[in-house]
């Protein structure tokens, strides 16, 4: 096997405005190994790989491929050096077939020979154990299949160095297993593989070596055999932290929200929720698991009064007197006017939960500006609320007048969750509340959800990390293609069991 490193980075730095995304980074990738780049969100992993892939150009430093210094100014240059990157967000043309997408952009004289391409795709597939139909259209494919197309696309172009950005984020446990098998086969074939991730268990499982980045700086590289999850966390965060989520038993859970036979169509007239029924109890965290895009977002938005309901009902049982309020066909304002304290942390924080260009005070105003008869805004109370949230949740911000768009992901989420909790909710819905957050902020959010549960709030938590869902929730509702495919006890269920339920859900398309 080749002893010259496939890629060597020397003193690489990259700035975006005042932000130092990468600072003096040195690392190597060898042929025949899988290297993980581990780091929290915003630690510069993707930026670093994008410079190798020709998306960005480094401000300083050198890139060596096979021992020779190179300048990579475009993805086409990268392919010339047999480097291919599989991005987190797929770049495929929906109405084309797999084979058409794979040859797209190749410089060939005359017409594309799709048939020959399809044959070559089959060849690559059988070599590495992919399961793919080259003539299938992209829009008919599952997320996992689309990812396979992306991987074959770079192999087709002859890449020997593959970089995958968070490849497991969108996959079920079963699909992750398959992907890892393929990666191992490529490694045996002598390819150099880099995977970017922030999931420790995957790092331990798949990689030979781990390079850790923290806040744009190189922390170190360790052999996977000689390390453990705690040590890696410490390298990643910079200090020891405990990765335990406490879970208390629900205190006298009573029914708070009853969803019955909910049917919802999206704007294109496709059914996104099909006969969804469940009960959310006060003092309990109900986790919702599912492949992303299975109807989780629509479910929460429907409960919040943002989606029209075709059939079915949503009932709220008022704490205290037990009066039942019907929430069907009510707007968010009508729901609030009924005295239902329903808080909602939506998936799209800056596009729905907050207004990015407004400062923290004005974002607090979103919930409260209607109060009072005056035609003018009153900013006193929102200002003190903003200050309280900044203090209590340790929001890192220059001031309460900073536009929230300027804050980091974790701080944006603290502002949003803080505001929603400040409304003293009886039902709290949170969609992917820790997506993109660093470990410390994530645990703070888990803690806040737990606190709400202990206060007797009915918490509905849509998550993507099954380990977290299993550790935090009391019950887990699994949703697949808009159906409820199971409701399990989080204390006894296994990850595999949930993974299987996620891929069920009838009406296979």
């Amino acid at each position, binding site marked *: 096997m080749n002893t010259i490193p496939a890629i060597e980075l020397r003193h690489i730095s990259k*700035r975006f405005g005042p932000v130092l995304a990468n600072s003096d980074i040195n690392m190597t990738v060898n042929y025949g190994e899988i290297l993980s780049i581990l780091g929290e969100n915003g630690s510069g992993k993707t930026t670093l790989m994008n410079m190798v892939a020709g998306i960005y*150009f480094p401000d300083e430093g050198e890139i060596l491929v096979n021992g020779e210094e190179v*300048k990579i100014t475009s993805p086409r240059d990268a392919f010339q050096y047999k480097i291919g990157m599989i991005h987190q967000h797929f770049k495929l043309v929906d109405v084309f077939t797999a084979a058409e997408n794979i040859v797209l952009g190749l410089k060939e004289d005359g017409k594309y020979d799709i048939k020959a391409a399809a044959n070559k795709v089959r060849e690559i597939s059988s070599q590495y154990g992919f399961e793919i139909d080259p003539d299938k259209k992209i829009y008919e494919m599952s997320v996992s299949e689309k990812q396979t197309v992306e991987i074959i696309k770079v192999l087709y172009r002859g890449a020997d160095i593959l970089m995958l950005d968070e490849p497991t984020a969108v996959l079920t446990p079963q699909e992750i297993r398959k992907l890892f098998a393929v990666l191992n086969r490529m490694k045996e074939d002598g390819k150099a593989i880099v995977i970017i991730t922030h999931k420790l268990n995957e790092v331990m499982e798949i990689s030979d070596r781990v390079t850790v980045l923290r806040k744009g700086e190189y922390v170190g590289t360790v052999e996977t055999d000689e390390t453990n999850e705690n040590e890696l966390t410490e390298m990643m965060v910079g200090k020891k932290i405990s990765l335990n989520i406490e879970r208390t038993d629900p205190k006298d859970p009573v029914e708070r929200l009853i969803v019955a036979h909910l049917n919802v169509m999206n704007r294109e007239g496709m059914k996104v929720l099909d006969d969804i029924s469940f009960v959310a109890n006060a003092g309990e965290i109900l986790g919702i698991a599912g492949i992303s895009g299975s109807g989780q977002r629509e479910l929460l938005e429907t409960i919040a009064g943002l989606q029209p309901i075709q059939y079915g009902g949503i009932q709220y049982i008022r704490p205290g007197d037990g009066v039942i309020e019907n929430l069907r066909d009510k707007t968010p*304002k009508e729901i609030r006017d009924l005295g239902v304290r329903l808080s909602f942390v939506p998936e799209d924080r800056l596009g729905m939960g907050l207004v990015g260009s407004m400062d923290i005070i004005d974002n607090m105003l979103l919930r409260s500006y209607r109060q009072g008869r005056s035609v003018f805004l009153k900013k006193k109370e929102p200002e003190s609320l903003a200050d309280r949230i900044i203090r209590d949740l340790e929001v890192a911000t220059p001031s309460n007048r900073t536009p929230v768009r300027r804050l980091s992901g974790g701080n944006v989420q603290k502002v949003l969750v803080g505001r929603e909790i400040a409304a003293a909710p009886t039902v709290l819905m949170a969609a992917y509340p820790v997506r993109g957050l660093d470990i410390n902020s994530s645990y703070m959010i888990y803690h806040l959800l737990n606190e709400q549960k202990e206060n007797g709030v009915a918490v509905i938590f849509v998550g993507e990390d099954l380990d977290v869902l299993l550790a935090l929730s009391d019950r887990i509702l699994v949703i697949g293609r808009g159906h409820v495919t199971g409701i399990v006890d989080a204390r006894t269920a296994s990850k595999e069991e949930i993974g299987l339920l996620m891929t069920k859900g009838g009406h296979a398309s």
Partner: protein
Amino acid sequence: MKEPLFHIVKRDSISWWKSWLIRLAAIAAALILCSVITVLLTGLNPMKVWGSLISGAVGTTRRRWMLLQGTAILLCISLAVTPAFRMRFWNTGAEGQVLAGGMAAAACMLLGGNLPGIILYPLIIVSSILAGAVWGVIPAIFKAKWNTNETLFTLMMNYVAMKIVDYFSQLWAVPKGSGKIGVINSSTNAGWLPALFGQTYLLNILIVVGITIFITVYMRFSKHGYEISVVGESENTARYIGINVKKVIIRTMILSGALCGVAGFLLVSGTDHTIASETVGGQGFTAIMVSWIAKFDPVVMVVVSALIVFLTRGAGEISTTLGLNKSFSDILTGIIILFIIGCEFFINYRMVFRGKHKEA
């Protein structure tokens, strides 16, 4: 393979003096380029051209008042379109909304010339406001109900308004067949906005000062203004917190159209005392530019509209006194405005040249 010659980097923030320095530099560069073009094309001394531009704009007391009056009208229309723009409702129909307001004012003056002032003036004001509001709200209703494209809809409404004015110009032409309404009530001055302290345009200007203050307060401190900003920034957020987006769209366009109606009233009752389809003269479109250059800030709009009126009036003088084609002065104003808008790029971004990476 070579490193690119330069790349463009977004600035995180810029101090206010630096941004104004860039703007001044842009104006200076524009003036230099204009001078070069003047010499090359006409052979005239550019200083003479600039001199005539300045004297054309502010050379006499009358011209200074005309400048203020012109600024007031343009500012009024710019302020009118601003709430809609803040809401990302691309109202390109200010021209027609102003014309609708003006037509209503002219109709009241013509038909109600014998009414006592105490009835006539409120009638004129209310009808022009109503006419402008109706012209503005029609596209808004279609947008809210059926999500039609407001840019095209408002634009088309302009031509409808112009043709209506043309129709009445024929109907009420003085003398018959001339196709022109002529000065209305020239003997009685009924419905004319009165002079204040002997100044014909002072009342016009004061009304626009009032509107400027109103819009500033409305956009910055009122609940309505807040709702407009939220709808403009993110309709999803607006729905999420329970703002009735349709209601806000319709309400804001009523306001936008009503203020355009006021501008129409000022043009007809306060300035021209007649109406024709070219009364607004494209200011409905210029106002869009003013509102954008000022980044929807009413105070900056005062400066921008003054600058634009200054340039247009001054440029008009160049073509008459120096015997140059009207198109030549348009070239000059075009270059200056292009530089003013273009320099915003350098305020938001900076360029880093090859081999100078260390520079912060």
